[in-house]
């Protein structure tokens, strides 16, 4: 569809897992299989201003993938400026004291490069994919926008419209996006994970140039960034360019830590959204630990067993056998702070939501009580293994994986030991993870369906059910 040229801004918070999904672990049948070719080529350095630079040379194609991971996301926002991290991401392409708005993209494309960026609850990530001959330019451009960003009031107004259009696309005109926002907002009452990454509408319309300036100064310190370069570049070359262009940017006070922690949830929460819907939605979000929790691999394997592929437990039970859902998805949403683990069900027209919920609850209770089979665990480990290798087949996948491990796990080298980490997970570990996650008192249940009147007049099999 449109995504090829739409450019930046996967603001939908759950999409962080696009990056993380590629970092799962392989099943090491033999030592040779877990050894990642070229892993010994990865080198890193920390510039004098605190910016860490990680380089993985891979000369298969004459290109380089550059990722700048900034440790700021919507969790760093407060009331009144929700959505600002994401809006800021847009503004990072819109001019500096040296370059006019638009010049960043024009210059990069004219030398054969393309770029994008995305914002999540936790991080903002800038991505460039360039031919090696454009490396110098790209480092110059990245440095310029970190050092000299400027804010043109006219551009701010125009970009506000772009972001609102993005919100309409993903939230207002999307039942899925709308319900996910409501569930997340209900699950967190204190912690800023309460806020949607795209921002509440009034804030999108209201933020000011002063808000932007403050946000930049606080969060875009070089010591709050991690730069990854993967591709046709040596570590020495990359370090030299980073020293030349990025090291002169002065270190700053790092952003203040997020103080608020979410108090323990004492009882199930429910949110019902009434919107015209042919296919009702049932989203269940359980409180889950942070990304670096030692139980993370077991939780990921648990969710793979439950929802990954046509032979997964919940797909087989709810979609194929009972025909209660048309689609079942699941995701452990890993972040810096304890977050959510989601089950996302799309239901057929005319579905009785309580009946679906009862079947889902029974299946989850069963996994808590009886655990998983050896075959299920092997299957999940093998799916992770192939995902790991597919992720490492491209310079982009390598840059994404290195960054995710460095930022969320504290050390990029954990990427290379993750196969062994996943291999060690036992059936008992998965059962323990199930018991940890699937606690009714810690969940938020979201239902989206047509208002009662519309639902009553709908003929389940009729094509006219959506008024």
């Amino acid at each position, binding site marked *: 569809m449109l995504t090829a*040229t739409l450019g930046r801004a996967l603001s939908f918070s759950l999409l962080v897992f696009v990056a993380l999904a590629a970092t799962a672990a392989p099943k090491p049948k033999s030592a040779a299989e877990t050894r990642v070719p070229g892993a010994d080529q990865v080198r890193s350095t920390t510039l004098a201003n605190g910016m860490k630079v990680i380089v993985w040379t891979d000369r298969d194609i004459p290109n380089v993938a550059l990722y700048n991971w900034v440790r700021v996301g919507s969790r760093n926002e407060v009331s009144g400026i929700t959505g600002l991290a994401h809006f800021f991401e847009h503004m990072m392409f819109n001019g500096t004291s040296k370059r006019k708005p638009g010049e960043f993209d024009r210059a990069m494309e004219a030398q054969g490069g393309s770029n994008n960026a995305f914002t999540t609850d936790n991080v903002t990530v800038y991505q460039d994919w360039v031919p090696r001959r454009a490396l110098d330019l790209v480092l110059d451009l990245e440095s310029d926008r970190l050092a000299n960003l400027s804010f043109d009031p006219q551009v701010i107004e125009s970009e506000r419209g772009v972001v609102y*259009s993005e919100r309409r*696309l993903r939230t207002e005109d999307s039942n899925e996006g709308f319900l996910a926002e409501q569930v997340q907002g209900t699950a967190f009452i204190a912690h800023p994970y309460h806020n949607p990454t795209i921002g509440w509408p009034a804030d999108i319309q209201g933020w000011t140039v002063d808000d932007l300036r403050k946000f930049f100064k606080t969060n875009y310190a070089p010591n709050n960034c991690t730069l990854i370069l993967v591709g046709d570049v040596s570590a020495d070359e990359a370090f030299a360019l980073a020293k030349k262009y990025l090291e002169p940017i002065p270190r700053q006070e790092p952003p203040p830590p997020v103080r608020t922690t979410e108090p323990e949830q004492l009882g199930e929460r429910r949110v019902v959204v009434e919107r015209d819907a042919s296919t009702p939605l049932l989203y269940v979000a359980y409180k889950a630990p942070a990304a670096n929790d030692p139980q993370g691999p077991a939780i990921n394997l648990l969710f793979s067993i439950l929802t990954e592929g046509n032979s997964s437990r919940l797909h087989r039970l709810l979609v194929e056998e009972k025909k209660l859902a048309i689609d079942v998805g699941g995701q452990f949403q890993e972040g810096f702070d304890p977050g959510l683990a989601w089950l996302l069900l799309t239901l*057929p027209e005319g579905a009785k939501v309580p009946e679906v919920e009862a079947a889902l609850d029974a299946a989850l209770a069963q996994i808590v009580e009886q655990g998983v089979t050896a075959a299920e665990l092997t299957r999940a480990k093998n799916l992770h293994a192939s995902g790991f290798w597919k992720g490492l087949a491209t310079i982009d996948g390598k840059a994404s994986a290195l960054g995710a491990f460095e930022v969320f796990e504290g050390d990029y080298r954990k990427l290379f030991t993750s196969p062994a980490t996943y291999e060690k997970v036992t059936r008992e570990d998965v059962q323990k993870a199930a018991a940890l996650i699937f606690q009714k008192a810690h969940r938020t249940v979201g239902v989206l369906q047509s208002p009662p009147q519309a639902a009553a007049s709908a003929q389940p099999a009729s094509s006219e059910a*959506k008024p």
Partner: protein
Amino acid sequence: MSARIPLRCAALLLAFCFSVAQAAGTEAVGVKVPANQRFVLPNGLTVVLVPNKEVPLIAFSGFVRGGALADPAGKPGVAAEVAGLLDRGAGKRTAFQFADDIEGVGGSFNASAGAESISVGGQFMARDRALMIELLADALMRPHLDADEFAKFRDRDIEFIKAAKDSDPAQLLPEYARASLFGAHPYARPQGGSERSLAALTQADVAAYHAAYFGADRTVLVFAGDLDAKWMRSALTAAFGSWSKAKGALPKLARAPRVEGRRVLLVDSPGSVQTYFWLGNVGVDKFYNGRPALDLVNTLYGGRFTSILNTELRIKSGLSYGASSRFTRGTVPGEFSIQSFTRTEDTGKAIDLALETLNKLKHDALEPAMLESARAYVLGQYPLRLETAAHWAAALADLEFFGLGKDFIEGYGPALAKVDLAEAAAVTADAFPRPEDLVLVLIGDAAKIREAAAKYGPVTEMKISQPDFTPN
């Protein structure tokens, strides 16, 4: 988020991926088709093997000719249902066993129907190569096409169309648009069927399709990755050697005429806060002579972030999150399309702007610097699209489908290097429609945009809840 693909993806997607190459005055990119082995079995099955040992995986990509083109009259969606059922029970395995055996080893298998073929693809760990070939042979030669599985799968496909209307109406724009633009031509058919057409299908339709159109001589399979060509050749010969040729002749595909004048299809989605719009006409085919020049011009017009379209609709005006254009290229000309969206109140403004950009493109000469920028861009991005074994499997399957040689890839750079302004002007005149000759499709709140829509031509209106992609 949950992976959801309500309408299975068109086989023609590849056409766009190849719009890239090598620029004059810069380093030679040297994109070379990797060494490979190609052979044809006595029954006509074509196989291509591409060894590449970077990661311990084998990717495959292939097709069986047919697709929506072979759907029986009035029954769009048959090929799509056949594709979807290939892995839902085949050979000695039930649907569950088939999925479990694939996922149990961390493999993947997918199949979908496009306009002119059913394509298959997937990836397995290299150690599971024997299982991969067994499953692929079962899926293509011995699918059960079981009545219960058919009913379940078909019912769910109907629900997926409804779900798309609930959460991603823009995704359906091309279905409405092709139906309107191509009329009686096979490219008009919704490749995944419509709610109405799917509801009317029977298991017999699916079985009849497979019996008539599947066969070794209609099929090409490309494997790329950590493979031993000798072993693969012998295993594939054993697995596919007994497959017969296809029995039914495929319909011939005529060229669809370009639309003259303008007409509008307005799809009413009450309460929608944005209008999702599509403007287009019949464009070019895969063999179009001016391909390098056209790719450069479309890159400039609507193929990258700083394109003329995105600059006007997003960067300068803030009207939309994005605007783009593309050519879909088949055996005969597919569609040229512009796609974007804006809030309901700005519908007329955004469409006016889009038309204005097209008008300028048709009348104003390109600056030499723009052409150079597009050339560098296309060149610079090219290797990223041919990086992995899976990329090459898909690329070589595409060449096989259209009967193109490797020069289509390797000769493209030098051809691109030679494109000059005169050539760019010639393809702009030839392949891009005049703004006066367009089909427009708008999905939005009709009560609020009916008046704006009427400015662009005679309007036909339908409701998004209607079970077809055409008004009647």
